[in-house]
């Protein structure tokens, strides 16, 4: 979806039309007014266009949402069959595309120079990823210090009224496990901090810069150090892949480009200001809309899956059993199940943890069994967290 088209058009107008009034040596007052009037007219058109686009989009989204919220039980057999057919067709298409891709590659590789060049570029890509696995997100780099400062700003919002658990030995246990895993990542130099907070909720969080939080509820739910390692590995991966920074960067960039345009308008054509502010509001509304609900989740879901496979790999690098995270997700799925049962809908066949489990299992099975085995450290973990369990029961 091209969400910037009409806005970009307006910005272009502001940049192209305005300075043109300024640099030409001697436009008369009438000419100037006519030019401004013309720019205002175009801006009005752009705003109207954007408004109607938004209305269409909203309607489509509402339909999609209504479809998504239909209970799974209300699907007719025909609809079910239709869905199955769609999946089958999609699989067939993927298969065909893959075969075509392979055939093309084989054709290109017939030329030994091309084959060498392709190998070389593969190797370069792998090497680059080994240094900084954030890949395309690396363009959002802030620098480690700035990133840590940004993360620290987010901590109060996250922690709220919750307290850290006052048990220094347990806090340090979590920190030692976490820090050891973080050292196996591509960003060992961050000021990694792991905090164990006093909440019944079962969750763990990460903010930029390497601040990771885990709740008492989660520690009680888990039953082995390799499970803890998998959960901490998942959170560490978000930081290593810089998943948070994409949003921070996008919001910042949008704000600054709107500000620049507004300044230019204030200077050269103040009569356009109300229109511009209306456009600004529309763009913010649209961005908020795109960030909410079904539109947002596709990308963040793929980031969650990536954090799962990376988290399992990081735990394995640290000497743990890679399946610790699978086991943790299974416990989490059981914990979530009563809540998901009430919300099963037509499009979302699987509750989130089940989808994640299946995906992680497929990913881990692409490795040799021996490359997933490692330390479970169940007894050490149960011993370290015994005081929590005794209090909980």
């Amino acid at each position: 979806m091209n969400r910037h088209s009409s806005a970009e058009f307006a910005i272009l107008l502001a940049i192209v039309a305005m300075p043109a009034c300024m640099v030409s040596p001697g436009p008369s007052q009438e000419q100037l007014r006519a030019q401004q009037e013309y720019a205002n007219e175009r801006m009005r058109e752009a705003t109207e266009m954007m408004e109607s686009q938004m209305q269409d989009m909203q309607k489509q989204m509402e339909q999609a949402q209504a479809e998504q919220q239909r209970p799974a039980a209300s699907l007719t057999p025909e609809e079910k069959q239709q869905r199955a057919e769609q999946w089958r067709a999609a699989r067939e298409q993927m298969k065909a595309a893959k075969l075509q891709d392979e055939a093309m590659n084989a054709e290109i590789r017939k030329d030994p120079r091309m084959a060498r060049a392709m190998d070389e570029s593969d190797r370069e890509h792998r090497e680059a990823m080994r240094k900084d696995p954030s890949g395309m997100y690396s363009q959002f780099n802030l620098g480690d210090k700035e990133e840590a400062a940004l993360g620290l700003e987010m901590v109060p919002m996250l922690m709220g009224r919750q307290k850290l658990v006052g048990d220094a030995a347990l806090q340090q246990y979590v920190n030692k496990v976490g820090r050891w895993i973080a050292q196996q990542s591509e960003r060992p130099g961050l000021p990694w901090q792991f905090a164990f907070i006093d909440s019944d909720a079962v969750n763990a969080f990460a903010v930029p810069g390497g601040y990771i939080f885990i709740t008492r509820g989660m520690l009680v739910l888990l039953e082995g150090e390799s499970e803890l390692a998998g959960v901490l590995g998942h959170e560490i991966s978000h930081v290593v892949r810089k998943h948070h920074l994409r949003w921070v960067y996008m919001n910042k960039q949008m704000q600054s480009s709107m500000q620049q345009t507004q300044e230019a308008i204030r200077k050269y054509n103040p009569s356009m200001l109300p229109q511009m502010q209306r456009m600004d509001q529309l763009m913010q509304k649209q961005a908020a809309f795109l960030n909410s609900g079904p539109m947002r989740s596709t990308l963040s879901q793929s980031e969650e899956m990536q954090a799962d496979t990376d988290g399992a790999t990081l735990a394995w690098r640290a000497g743990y059993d890679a399946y610790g995270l699978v086991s943790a997700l299974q416990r989490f799925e059981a914990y979530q199940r009563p809540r998901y049962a009430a919300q099963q809908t037509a499009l979302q066949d699987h509750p989130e943890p089940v989808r994640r489990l299946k995906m992680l299992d497929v990913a881990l099975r692409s490795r040799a069994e021996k490359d997933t085995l490692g330390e479970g450290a169940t007894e050490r973990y149960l011993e370290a967290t015994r005081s929590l369990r005794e209090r909980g029961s």
Partner: protein
Amino acid sequence: MLDRPANGARPVAKLAKQQPLEILGRNGSWARVKAGSASGWVRLLDVRFNAPSNVAPVARIKPSADNGIRGFSEEDLLGGTQDRGEIDKLKLYGVPVKDAVSFARASGLSARQQDYIEPGDYLSMDELPEDFFDE
């Protein structure tokens, strides 16, 4: 149910769907289970755990794209008012790298090399299990 945690292992008992099991342990992707008098190994993913009875979920603010916080799950972000004193305590509990390294050494954990699994390595639609998208 198999006699050892491996794909070519010998079946020792047949389990019914939804049959309650006791989990005795885990070895990588395999769980050692007990059903009645029989015990053996099943794939971890074929087991579903019982919902724990003693956890009370609380949902307040959702982590979202807007606030830049990523959570293990999309629910249960804690929210509420700010408390600087608690945040200053964070630093008290942090450990230097050398402590983490000696902890690992004492625990018999040693570092190993492994690349990440990239989606291209496994995420090919035609290789996903047949029932991947089924209910």
